[in-house]
């Protein structure tokens, strides 16, 4: 198929924001906190990142601002669910509503403004190779960083002491507490770190992927990222897989439309969702896969000494 190289490139690019947010939410969920505020957090980060990019012309400062905004909003969420033991699902949704409104309001001066960041990216030498050059090596650096981050997270979670502690907190907060770990602080740190990653994803969307700010521009990507953590059975590498699957099918259906395939567009648009479900069904057929990875304390509060 002609244009396969471009399709691969578009897939990598489309999957990246989902992957970053998915990795962040994975960090949250690994310590037992479900963050349904992802959509609102990404929006607040998107406008923060965009505003920073407008002012400083720096993508990297924009990612930093996004991370900061995402981290701060997650701090609120974390404090409520970890210290006040509020219900995680409801609190997350409330944060989402709040963040959506806040970003819409704060973003008013930035609608229709132009970013002067950007330009051509890629890895020298490699980008000029036939096929693999355009397919793999002409991406924004964040695309490669995301892959590295997934590898790093996978390593950290399963091969380091820190990872062991994080997993212990998610699996059995009571035992972790008994061993003397400050369970709630570890949870809060993970929630903030995960929120910061969601923030980077939001800033990436508004600064690099779709360089514009307009109210509600994340358009449900936060929800997809949440679904990805489940899809990935809480493993970082599989987050990448899921994000590229979703992004790839999205791009494929658009490419098929552009090449004249005659299927109602609504059915084409269903494909990314259906294929995600389909693949989940395939990988879930062995329940052990999921059971072994789902953090046992997911969604549950922990009070030391209770």
């Amino acid at each position, binding site marked *: 198929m002609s*244009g396969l190289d*471009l*399709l691969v490139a*578009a897939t990598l*690019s*489309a999957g990246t924001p989902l992957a970053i947010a998915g990795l962040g939410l994975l960090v949250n969920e690994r310590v037992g906190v479900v963050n349904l505020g992802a959509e609102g957090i990404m929006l*607040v980060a998107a*406008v*923060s990142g965009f*505003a*920073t990019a*407008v*002012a*400083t012309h720096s993508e990297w400062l924009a990612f930093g*601002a996004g991370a*900061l*905004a*995402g*981290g*701060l*909003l997650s701090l*609120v969420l974390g404090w409520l669910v970890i210290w006040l033991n509020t219900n995680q699902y409801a609190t997350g949704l409330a944060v989402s509503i*709040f963040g959506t409104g*806040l970003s*819409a*309001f*704060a973003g*008013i*001066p*930035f*609608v*229709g*403004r*132009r970013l002067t960041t*950007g330009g051509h990216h890629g890895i020298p030498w490699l980008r000029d190779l036939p096929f693999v050059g355009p397919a793999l090596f002409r991406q924004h650096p964040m695309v490669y960083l995301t892959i590295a981050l997934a590898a790093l997270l996978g390593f950290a979670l399963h091969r380091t002491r820190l990872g062991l502690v994080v997993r212990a907190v998610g699996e059995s907060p009571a035992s972790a507490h008994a061993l003397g770990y400050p369970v709630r602080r570890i949870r809060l740190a993970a929630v903030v770190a995960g929120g910061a990653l969601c923030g980077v994803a939001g800033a990436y969307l508004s600064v690099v*992927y*779709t*360089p*514009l700010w*307009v*109210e*509600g*521009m*994340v*358009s449900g*990507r936060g929800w997809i990222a949440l679904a990805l953590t489940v899809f990935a059975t809480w493993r970082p590498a599989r987050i990448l897989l899921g994000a590229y699957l979703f992004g790839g099918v*999205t*791009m494929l259906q*658009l*490419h098929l*439309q*552009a*090449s*004249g395939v*005659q*299927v*109602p*567009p609504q059915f*084409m*648009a269903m494909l990314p969702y259906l294929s995600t479900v389909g693949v989940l069904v395939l990988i879930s057929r062995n329940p052990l896969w999921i059971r072994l990875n789902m953090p046992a304390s997911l969604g549950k509060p922990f009070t030391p000494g209770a």
Partner: protein
Amino acid sequence: MNLSPSKHAALAALLAAATLAGCSKKEAPPAAEPHAAAPAPAKTGEPLKAGFIYVGPVGDAGWTFAHDKGRREAEAKMGGKVVTTFVEKVPEGPDAERVLRDLVAQGNKLIFATSFGFMDAVTKVAKDNPDVKFEHATGYRTADNLRVYEAKFYEGAYLAGILAGQMTKSNVLGFVGSFPIPEVLRNINAFTLGAQSVNPKITTKVVWVSAWFDPPRETEAAQSLLDQGADVLLQNTDSSAVLQAAERAGKYAFGWDSDMSAVAPKAHLGSCALDWSGYYVKSFNDVLNGTWKPEVTKWGVKEGAVDLVKVASFAPAEARKKVDAARQGLKAGTLAVFTGPIVDNTGKEVLAKGVVADDAWKGAVNFYVKGVEGKVPAGK
């Protein structure tokens, strides 16, 4: 917008900390200022109260933004004789009826429902309030106190096509569509016909995103068109994402609904912009003068409601001249976009030679003209 961008950026970076919104004291835009403080209307001498309901936020830089801009400009031109109120982000469903009734209860005597999906609600509320005049954008139902207005957007798409046909190198144009309704199909066809009027080799590829607003998805659709060789894009969706995707790829595109030249100076060939202010002034005057009557108004380039604005200065003078000529033709009434012979992309003649399409024909467009690839989804 009283804050400088950099100052605002610093604030925005601390958004989450600023939840108490104390930072946001003066940054509400003019559009968000209240217009509702007017006292209850008295018999004479009081200004006319007019209400607007919008489907999107006034800051969407697209459809709702254009209506709101028209509202503000029209109100300013009326010099105090009209006071307007608006409600934004009204969902197109049962909620609209409640909002409309509330606007009536607030004493508005003229109410604009600015999206197609408000049709059912505005019909019901109009029936119950014969003393209030209602105007519905892009609908088709009229009553004694309900009339409809729309813009001949396809004339803008046609002008864009003329430019696109001359700027393309690949002779392949791309169109990012929302949903296959007649209005959008007309735009695809007009864009293609305009391009073919200057370049017969043109073909157009269409991708549907099944949404009016989803910027990342619009980006992806634009990318898929660019990947398949299209080098000038137009869209019927509500954000500037397509334009920015073209800018990044070094290709061309157009703004839609409003002037989007600022976001992509290298890619922007022009913006198919709507200007509703003229119609709103007319409507206000109709009510004030007692000459308001139910009718169907379709304004285009001639009336100044639609135009291709901010045509790129980097486009060759020759190309711009052809756009100007077509614009003059539309203004003078010597040019009509849909004039036969028009052949659909299966080779069937859909409009005979020399015939100018009437409203019924335009309202029933359910095909692609020759040169557009593919088939209209769910079309016959």
